[in-house]
């Protein structure tokens, strides 16, 4: 039987998968999907720092909201660092992403080893942020992540038309006078929100996969964007909930890994199906 808490966690992870599929689809079509990887890694020092601050203030370091806030703050710092590095055009985006994600991650790991020697922080289970552990989520954690994710879906759905126009043809969108910069910033904000919401369950290393794999699978099968979004949402939900279910049954398997492996099965199926159709 599935207990009440497990059910809430599964639903939270499914909501997260839906959001990752939808937001990831636009990120993929805009060529920005790898930014999720940078955000995820850049979030670690923020999580650690937030846990330390909460512990120092005598608070409950198990509380999720401040940790996610910390993750968002250094996630933004990571994005700003990326922008700074690539602004001159002398450093290519792929090199810049590698530099930013590894240095923030290294910083976070060092912080983690310090934090775990501090009283009151050791219990926080911060290392579960790295690979994700849905089983340790409380009901309110899952609700927080789930509602954040659904908020992202609502914003994306509302901006469907202009986002599609931007992703297909940026220069035409610009020539039409669409607010390209604001739309790109919104998309980045959505990416950040999904990454942060996904950290506790999926973990920072593999959150990029939840954003990319369902979207990439859906793209193989759908001829139009509404269909791609619906499929990506479905695939994301299946991978998210399936991964969470596996890792709550087998506590030694991190949720992130289970989610990605589930996503990979879906991706293989999509690839096979698209080849069959073309043949």
């Amino acid at each position, binding site marked *: 039987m599935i207990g009440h808490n497990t059910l809430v966690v599964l639903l939270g992870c499914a909501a997260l998968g839906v959001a990752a599929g939808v937001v990831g689809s636009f990120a993929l*079509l805009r060529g920005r999907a790898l930014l999720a990887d940078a955000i995820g890694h850049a979030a670690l020092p923020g999580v650690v720092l937030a846990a330390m601050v909460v512990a120092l203030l005598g608070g409950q370091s198990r509380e999720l909201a401040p940790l996610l806030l910390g993750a968002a703050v250094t996630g933004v710092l990571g994005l700003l660092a990326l922008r700074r590095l690539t602004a001159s055009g002398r450093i290519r985006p792929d090199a810049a992403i590698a530099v930013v994600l590894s240095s923030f991650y290294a910083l976070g790991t060092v912080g983690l080893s310090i934090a775990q020697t501090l009283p009151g922080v050791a219990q926080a289970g911060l290392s579960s942020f790295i690979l994700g552990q849905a089983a340790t989520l409380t009901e309110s954690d899952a609700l927080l992540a789930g509602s954040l994710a659904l908020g992202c879906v609502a914003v994306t759905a*509302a*901006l469907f*038309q*202009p986002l*599609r*126009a931007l*992703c*297909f*043809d940026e*220069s*035409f*969108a*610009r*020539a*039409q*006078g*669409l607010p390209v910069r604001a739309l790109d910033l919104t998309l980045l904000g959505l990416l950040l929100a999904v990454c942060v919401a996904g950290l506790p369950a999926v973990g920072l290393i593999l959150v990029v996969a939840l954003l990319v794999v369902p979207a990439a699978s859906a*793209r193989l099968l*759908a*001829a*139009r*964007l509404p*269909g*791609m979004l619906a499929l990506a949402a479905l695939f994301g939900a299946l991978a998210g909930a399936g991964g969470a279910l596996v890792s709550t049954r087998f506590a030694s398997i991190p949720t992130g890994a289970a989610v990605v492996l589930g996503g990979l099965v879906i991706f293989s199926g999509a690839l096979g199906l698209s080849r069959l159709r073309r043949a």
Partner: protein
Amino acid sequence: MSAPPLDITGLTVRYGERPALTGVNWTAAPGLTAILGPNGAGKSTLLKAALGLIPADEGQVRFFGLPLEQARPRLAYLPQRASVDWDFPASALDVVAMARLPRTRWFGRLPRAEREAARAALAAVGMADFADRQIGRLSGGQQQRVFLARALAQEADLFLMDEPLAAVDVVTEQTILAVLHGLVRAGKSVLMVHHDLSLVQAHFDQVLILAGRVVASGPVAEAFTEPAIARAFGGLPGRTPTEAAA
């Protein structure tokens, strides 16, 4: 006399250190204008800089006597076909309907009237039967006609087109030329980056010949001369108007 569709003063654009356009002064006349010049002459750059898609280092651009922001609803743009990913999950109608976005609210489905306007634009380029086809499954010429339909759906007074006749089939070339002449008859103006000198005398009213700066401009009969072509193209054999028209 009303303001010209496009008036450019002292336009200079550099890519890093390399100048792409230097001190361009040009006033477009109404009608169908071909923008000619060798590769790297700054033809596409001129359109993009005029539309604010790339930053200009110096210069002023006015459309119908107005700055870009105020003139935008009267402009249509047709980028190079190769500038987008045609595997994008969209139908021909989806792409054309994007032109109607500034006229509608963003939220929810595109209103029926807007979708009908997009369908009419597709029909105008002979693509009515392909409205629901995924754009990646269209031929190159059909894709080019979808781009033209999208520009038509903008219902503009001035059309800026970047090589709509590049590498298209005969049917598409005929269709596009017919549509362009129809626009001009309806009082619209078209500025078109173009590379096939053989079509100029038969189809265009005006030319602008570029080679990093203005080499010649004006009515075809006056400006489309062998010396001007030779200066722009560096006297390449086989590119003179007489030979090209032969």
